[in-house]
């Protein structure tokens, strides 16, 4: 119960301690940050155990204030699920950065910003107060703007500026939406807002507020009409940060907040679900088509992120239990394999020194670990059967057909085929084919980078077992229930406070 405030607090405290003590010794930074992220991962697993032993979601009173008055932190199936994803990937990324970030100066600044971003994401996930959500969202965003510009080269600064402007406009839309919501409901607690909205009903101002929220959070999640910043910002950052941004950042700040607001606070209605499905289908097709033409390794992966986010939004938009299950499962899978692919691209860049896939080739013999893990990730993202990506895409497509939206299932299948096409192009150009002369003395990457990649690859294979009924009821089903019985969220202040 008392672990709940530790999720944001450990990250924040760790960030300031690293900036205070890490100036002298790089080794201290490495060990300390890894201990913090490992502890956060352990705590998130433990939160799942606590939730299992309870019948109701948990509400934590920060400062001892009763929820509608004070800020509350909420732990239910969905937040526990998200916490596990975020902290697992973050742990792998810090493990990877031990070796990768050696080439940059001022490693402690990187770790400070990374921990701040992690604290922001964890805070967004556990909070039960909408303004608190905004504050954590801004903490994570400001840290990510600085991390995108970390290398201070011309391209990185340009990408960071573009990202910063679009993302701050998105934040202002969200703040404006919160202003409307507060003026109507006179409370900031999300469960309390849900109660007021279900009693008073929605009026035009609330419709306007929900459009502001959709625009704001879709900008954060990079859904297609709002995606322009992502293909610049994600490749420009250092590889661990690209992995973090693409793997967990857009999901914690975009998809999770959209779910929380529109399923739990506003309540899902058909118009909204249709909008989600449309946005998702457009994202799938446009992202895949744009990814086909790329020759930059990381830029291709960034467009692929847009494509895969489309699947998640499409599944959520279906609104049926099966669709939501598929969306959540795909969310887990995508965060695992996309961060793995970005780490692979970082490993290739680390040894070869370029990101243009036309200049590479035949790296399979020289870098066996990188090439086999990236093969696993590519196969699972394009939906080859034994891997996890196949099952989640299958569930989403089946749910589309089951709900009677055959057209959307066609778009989803088309997107999947295109995904296979561009990942075959990637694999063929980078790891297969002939090795150019100048890469004859290329060596495999250092130990910690290999460890992180291998563990994520194992998660790709094991992740497929999550849909088995015996495993599903522990992790996926509680998260799915939070969304399918969305409006039960308004009761948590009565049943959750201990």
């Amino acid at each position, binding site marked *: 119960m*008392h672990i709940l*405030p530790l999720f944001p*607090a450990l990250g*924040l*405290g760790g960030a*300031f*301690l690293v*900036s*205070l003590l890490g*100036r002298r010794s790089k080794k201290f930074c490495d060990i300390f940050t890894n201990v913090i992220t490992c502890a956060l991962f352990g705590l998130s697993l433990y939160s799942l155990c606590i939730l299992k032993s309870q019948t109701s979601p948990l509400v*934590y*009173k*920060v*400062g*001892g204030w009763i929820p509608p008055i004070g800020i509350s932190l909420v732990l239910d199936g969905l937040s526990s699920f998200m916490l596990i994803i975020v902290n697992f990937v973050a742990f792998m990324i810090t493990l990877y950065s031990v070796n990768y970030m050696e080439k940059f100066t001022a490693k402690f600044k990187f770790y400070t910003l990374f921990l701040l971003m992690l604290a922001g994401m964890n805070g967004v996930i556990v909070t039960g107060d909408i303004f608190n959500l905004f504050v954590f969202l801004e903490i994570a965003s400001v840290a990510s703007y600085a991390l995108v510009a970390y290398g201070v080269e011309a391209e990185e600064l340009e990408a960071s500026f573009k990202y910063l402007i679009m993302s701050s406009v998105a934040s202002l839309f969200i703040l404006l939406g919160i202003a409307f919501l507060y003026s109507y409901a006179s409370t900031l607690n999300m469960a309390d807002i849900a109660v007021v909205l279900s009693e008073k009903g929605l009026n035009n101002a609330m419709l306007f507020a929900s459009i502001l929220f959709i625009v704001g959070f879709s900008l954060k999640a990079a859904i297609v009409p709002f995606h322009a910043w992502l293909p610049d910002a994600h490749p420009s950052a250092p590889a661990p940060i690209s992995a973090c941004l693409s793997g967990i950042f857009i999901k914690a700040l975009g998809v999770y907040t959209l779910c929380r607001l529109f399923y739990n606070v506003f309540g899902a209605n058909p118009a909204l679900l249709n909008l989600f499905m449309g946005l998702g289908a457009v994202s799938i097709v446009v992202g895949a088509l744009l990814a086909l033409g790329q020759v930059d390794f990381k830029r291709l992966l960034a467009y692929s992120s847009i494509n895969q986010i489309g699947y998640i939004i499409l599944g959520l938009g279906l609104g049926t239990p099966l669709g939501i299950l598929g969306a959540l499962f795909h969310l887990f899978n995508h965060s695992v394999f996309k961060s793995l692919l970005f780490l692979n691209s970082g490993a290739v860049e680390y040894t070869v020194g370029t990101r243009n896939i036309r200049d590479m080739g035949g790296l399979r013999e020289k870098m066996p670990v990188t090439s086999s893990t990236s093969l696993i990730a590519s196969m699972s993202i394009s939906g080859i059967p034994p891997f996890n990506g196949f099952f989640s895409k299958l569930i989403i497509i089946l749910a589309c057909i089951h709900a009677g939206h055959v057209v959307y299932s066609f778009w989803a299948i088309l997107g999947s085929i295109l995904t296979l096409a561009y990942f075959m192009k990637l694999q063929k150009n980078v790891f297969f084919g002939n090795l150019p002369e100048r890469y004859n003395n290329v060596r495999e990457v250092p130990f910690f980078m290999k460890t992180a990649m291998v563990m994520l690859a194992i998660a790709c294979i094991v992740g497929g077992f999550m849909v088995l009924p015996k495993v599903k009821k522990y992790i996926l089903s509680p998260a799915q229930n939070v969304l399918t019985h969305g409006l039960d969220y308004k009761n948590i202040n009565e049943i959750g406070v201990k």
Partner: protein
Amino acid sequence: MNYNSPHKGMTLIVKTITRITVGLILLYGIYITLHGHVSPGGGFAGGVIIALSFIHLMLAFGKEEALRRLPKPLVSLFESLGAILFFTIAILGFVGGYFFLDWLNKGEPFKLFSAGSILLSNIAIAIKVSFGLFGIFLVLVLLKFTPKK
């Protein structure tokens, strides 16, 4: 006493006035911080005023003199310390059972030593904000500026 030399910073008039006023501004910032819980103001407002006194010093005497008194590592050290102090106050709430719980004696309203840990939090915030703002100013001023063709 080379900081009175006319080559660095502004003119003698500005320097003299600054020497008189900078202490007052600093004191006013501290006053705003310490009375944050009984009157309008608080850690952020007080911290901004304290930071303005540092910036005032820098504008009048030039950056060498200001950096001699407040070197950059010291600024970032104090900034982190302020944050950690605030974080410690939050963690100490666990003594009373809840994160951020104000378990100190609340005292009598409208007295200086009242309102539990709010005074301590204000001090921590003032340290963080003043050195943070001054740090931002320093970073923007000291940026090496060599435009390319």
